[in-house]
């Protein structure tokens, strides 16, 4: 069982359901996306722990999704994308083969302004048992 690959694939597949959004995936070079509404996901896995004596492991973590909106386009478009991400993941159990990824919480992080964009952060917290 490739638990961590399954987690990554499950979350990425779900995010791909946002068809009309440009996704800047990690470790992939993109050109021409500047100045467009786009998202950038980053996966962070927390330390796994043993849950019981039968050897069940709990693997928690979160997917940080940065939402980039060009300056001057208004914060409504930023909020709209964040809402779409929220609705996409809320109360979901993602399945990749026999692996189940439980979405625990979706929270909005701080927003900030970069050179050409307004950036909002959404964290999707998950837990996966193995």
């Amino acid at each position, binding site marked *: 069982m490739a638990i961590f690959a399954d987690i990554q694939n499950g979350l990425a597949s779900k995010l791909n359901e946002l068809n009309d959004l440009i996704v800047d995936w990690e470790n992939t070079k993109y050109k021409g996306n500047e100045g467009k509404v786009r998202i950038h996901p980053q996966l*962070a896995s927390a330390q796994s722990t043993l849950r019981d004596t039968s050897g069940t492991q709990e693997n928690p973590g979160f997917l940080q999704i940065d939402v980039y909106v060009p300056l001057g386009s208004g914060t409504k478009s930023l909020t709209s994308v964040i809402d779409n991400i929220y609705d996409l993941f809320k109360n979901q159990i993602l399945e990749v083969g026999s692996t189940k990824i439980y979405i625990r919480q979706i929270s909005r992080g*701080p927003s*900030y302004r970069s050179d050409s964009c307004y950036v909002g952060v959404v964290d999707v917290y998950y837990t996966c048992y193995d």
Partner: protein
Amino acid sequence: MAVTVEGIMSQASENAKFEAQFMANAKIALEAAENVTKYSIAELYRLLYDNSVVGNPAYWKTPPPPDYKPGTLKKGWRISFSGFRDGDGQFTSASSIVQNHGMSLSINGGTKTAYIFNNTPYLERIEYQGWSKQAPNGFVRLAILRFTSIVDGNAAKFRTK
């Protein structure tokens, strides 16, 4: 069934014994719960302190100022059981910490609330914007994710028999 004075006295004595036993057990359980809360919060605080990144000029593009001393972020963690208090003991608030781009959390442990916070103004950038090569995904949220297992571990440790 005949009701006798001796019978009533005996029953009262049994009730008193039961009450004393119950109160003793309740005290042990409450102490155990308090220990679980106390040790778990302390462990989370230590985790945040230990995992705080310390500036390493070897990673920097520009040299550090001559009087640069690393460790500001690590030393910036505070814990209090009486609200958010800054270094001078004056009260501040969660919103003022957020405005300063620091981070705060409050943990309600039943009888007490613990306030853990760090007012260092670049913590938010390290946590959310990937400003540290040592912790590109931050470290605060990852520490908080471990809190449930920390509580479980301490609950097992202090479980009453």
